[in-house]
């Protein structure tokens, strides 16, 4: 049988379009030569080049050719299909063609950008085009599957990013589940006193949003809870959430805090997590006064009843609403959502990893986060900057880039440290009148009003010494250094080494991925970048999407970010989620597997291989049957089928064999 006999409209008529991508491709690949080569390939009716194929005129050119030359197959050789495959498939659709008669050739990411020699790059491009021509001949018309989406959204993480995303979606009328691991939402921002560069009070701008979350009819807030399982796919995720027992019935507690007063421990004596151990709490406690929900919890690690079973349990009597429940068990909730936003935040760099800075060795070396609590009016010292021995520091050194811009720890710049160091310098100087020294490598203040804030600090007389500190020591050489911490640094702008004695050292620790980012990533089936932050689909064009459809990112879980950027990204993630669920359905790539019934021998090999239980066995006909609604298109069954009965749309054996021959026939 000849090709034109198989194909009713006279056999394949292929158009090949090679993109210059400005100079991105044309700067390396001889595009003209590739086009001329394409013209020699079988079934190719037209071959053209253009500066930007993805632009309107480029698309129009293809549409016109389809009409004029009755093309029924199109190949575009340009960038990665992950970027523009959808664009060009749409072009075919617009010209009245089935969009799957299309094949994209990646001659930018896989050729021009990675090949040294222009000659070799051109040859490689030709080989890939040849392969695509062979492949596309065997393409078939396919229909996209439409699947309805659940219109609920899960937001994981209740920091400022998660809060903002949840509120945005809830205001748009969508139901949101907000899951937070800690007993309260608020995240890192709740720990801050002021925010840069405006010196807004963090609590003043955050707590209204926290209460709004608690009060919103469209938000189900689950604090002290963790996502433990995620199944399904875009539009139809099934999620299990573990709600840890707080031993207080949330619905009954009104936050009067009388139980805390009544606790048999008269004094707070356990290190308080929210204040990073700088303050103390009782076994029954609330993390901080504006905690949301305003519900107490009991820490079984420190509560006498849990430890010994012997306690008067005065808290029980103190609670008029009988909200305390020592028998409370953890609960597993199951929800179905159409989209998921991850806003799991960051952790700060562990300063102990740089022993030369003396954190954990010298009591007057603090991390910046600890100092945030010290300067916070609601913090353990009531906002007074006092050292552990009660003294007010007269000289303070702030060391930038702790754990950042360092090949041994994190190579990246943490972006927020310069600005928060300026803020802390200002607050410390304001509260204590101390001489404050900033030790920086480069000042990074790109942001609205940031440079102006730096200027203000310069004028306030804060010292800025350009140099990375090698060591903090208590080794005094001169009398004025006695009893102080000495910071040894090269003042690089002057070119001399200086020793600067201070009373207090603040380490501007960088931002790192959460310690369990790797497990979270696996649970949600997304990727991490090298440094361990969640990976966005495209750094510029899809900055809040992931490679898994329906899962979006917001805030510092994607990379170090300040509050304005986190909020902006949270808004963007909410909009993406909204766009997805508001449509009511998603279209899935038609790359499912199917069984050619007459070939199936009923060996059942495929059935056990399918991770989604999409294949069942028809006992009557003794053949395998694939439920295309459940199939996700991995093709594992296809590769395993001994009789060739299992096949996969878009990745047919014939297509791939042609591609293999194509890349090899022309080298």
């Amino acid at each position: 049988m000849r090709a034109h006999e198989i194909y009713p409209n006279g056999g394949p008529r292929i158009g090949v379009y090679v993109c210059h991508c400005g100079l991105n491709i044309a700067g390396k690949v001889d595009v003209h030569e590739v086009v001329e080569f394409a013209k020699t390939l079988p079934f190719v009716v037209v071959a053209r080049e253009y500066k930007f194929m993805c632009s309107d005129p480029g698309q129009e050119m293809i549409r016109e050719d389809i009409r004029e030359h009755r093309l029924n197959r199109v190949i575009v050789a340009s960038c990665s299909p992950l970027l523009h495959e959808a664009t060009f498939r749409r072009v075919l659709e617009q010209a009245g063609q089935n969009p799957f008669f299309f094949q994209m050739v990646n001659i930018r990411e896989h050729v021009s950008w990675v090949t040294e020699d222009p000659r070799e790059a051109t040859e490689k491009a030709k080989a890939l085009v040849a392969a695509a021509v062979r492949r596309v001949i065997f393409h078939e018309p396919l229909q996209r599957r439409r699947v309805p989406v659940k219109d609920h959204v899960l937001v994981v993480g209740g920091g400022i990013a998660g809060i903002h995303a949840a509120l945005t979606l809830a205001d748009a009328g969508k139901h949101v589940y907000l899951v937070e691991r800690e007993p309260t939402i608020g995240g890192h921002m709740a720990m801050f006193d002021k925010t840069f560069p405006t010196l807004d009070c963090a609590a003043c701008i955050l707590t209204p949003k926290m209460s709004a979350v608690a009060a919103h009819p469209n938000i189900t807030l689950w604090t002290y809870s963790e996502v433990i399982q995620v199944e399904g796919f875009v539009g139809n995720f099934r999620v299990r959430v573990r709600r840890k027992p707080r031993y207080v019935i949330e619905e009954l507690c009104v936050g009067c805090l009388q139980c805390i007063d009544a606790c048999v421990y008269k004094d707070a004596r356990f290190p308080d997590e929210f204040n990073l151990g700088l303050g103390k709490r009782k076994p029954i406690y609330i993390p901080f006064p504006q905690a949301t929900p305003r519900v107490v919890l009991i820490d079984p690690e420190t509560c006498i009843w849990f430890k010994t079973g012997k306690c008067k349990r005065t808290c029980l009597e103190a609670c008029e609403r009988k909200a305390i429940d020592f028998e409370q068990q953890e609960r597993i909730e199951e929800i179905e959502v159409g989209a998921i936003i991850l806003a799991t935040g960051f952790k700060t760099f562990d300063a102990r990893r740089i022993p030369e800075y003396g954190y954990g060795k010298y009591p007057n070396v603090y991390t910046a986060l600890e100092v945030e609590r010290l300067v916070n009016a609601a913090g353990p010292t009531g906002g007074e900057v006092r050292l552990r021995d009660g003294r007010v520091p007269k000289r303070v050194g702030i060391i930038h880039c702790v754990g950042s811009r360092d090949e041994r720890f994190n190579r990246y710049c943490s972006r927020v440290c310069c600005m928060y160091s300026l803020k802390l310098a200002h607050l410390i100087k304001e509260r204590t009148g101390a001489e404050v020294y900033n030790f920086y490598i480069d000042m990074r203040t790109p942001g609205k009003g940031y440079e102006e804030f730096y200027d203000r600090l310069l004028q306030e007389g804060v010292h800025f010494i350009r140099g990375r500190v090698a060591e903090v020591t208590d080794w005094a050489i001169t009398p004025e250094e006695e009893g102080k911490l000495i910071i040894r640094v090269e003042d690089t702008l002057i070119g001399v080494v200086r020793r600067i004695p201070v009373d207090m050292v603040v380490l501007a620790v960088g931002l790192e991925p959460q310690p369990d980012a790797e497990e979270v990533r696996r649970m949600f089936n997304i990727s991490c970048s090298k440094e361990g932050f969640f990976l966005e689909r495209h750094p510029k064009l899809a900055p809040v999407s992931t490679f898994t459809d329906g899962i979006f990112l917001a805030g510092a879980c994607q990379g170090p970010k300040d509050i304005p950027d986190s909020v902006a990204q949270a808004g963007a993630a909410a909009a993406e989620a909204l766009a997805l669920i508001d449509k009511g359905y998603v279209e899935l790539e038609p790359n499912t597997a199917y069984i050619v019934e007459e070939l199936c021998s009923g060996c059942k090999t495929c059935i056990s291989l399918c991770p989604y239980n999409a294949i069942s066995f028809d006992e009557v006909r003794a053949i395998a049957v694939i439920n295309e609604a459940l199939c996700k298109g991995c093709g594992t069954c296809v590769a395993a089928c001994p009789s060739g009965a299992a096949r996969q749309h878009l990745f047919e054996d014939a297509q791939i064999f042609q591609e293999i021959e194509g890349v090899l026939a022309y080298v």
Partner: protein
Amino acid sequence: MSERPMEGERSFEPRIVAFFCNWCTYTAADLAGTARMTYAPNIRIIRLMCSGRLDPQFVLAAFRHGADGVLIGGCHPGDCHYQEGNYKALRRYLLLKRLLREMGIEEERLRLEWISASEGDRVQKVANEFTETIRRLGPLRLAPRPGVIRLPVAALPEPSPAAREGALP
């Protein structure tokens, strides 16, 4: 159109077919491009949705049609987008190695690598290393290789039922 020169005419340039999974390794190769990490031009990447789609026949076909080496790239164990397709790929890879040995093909000509979406540098490293390995092994001498494109139009396999049913526009 340039015909592949006879071996010995100029230094041997290995021909390598790479099967990369859509979610990890193919994306990593895109990242290598975005980061302009140049590597040996000998690698020809074919995209599959999952390394689990890799039919052992693909590898054999590649060798039959003139590949000197075949590279398989998938997600790291535990990271498969489809849960465990990569484990299936691993099994088939091990089987293939034995098969190749039986056929007198050096088993180093087949390589499996786990490369995650963020490991662009690993694509570069593996591509270069593998090209060097194959260069050292020299050309794979099997049946005569096709030089120019000879599309076997007369022998086009039957299209799938969908195409036959006249769904074509």
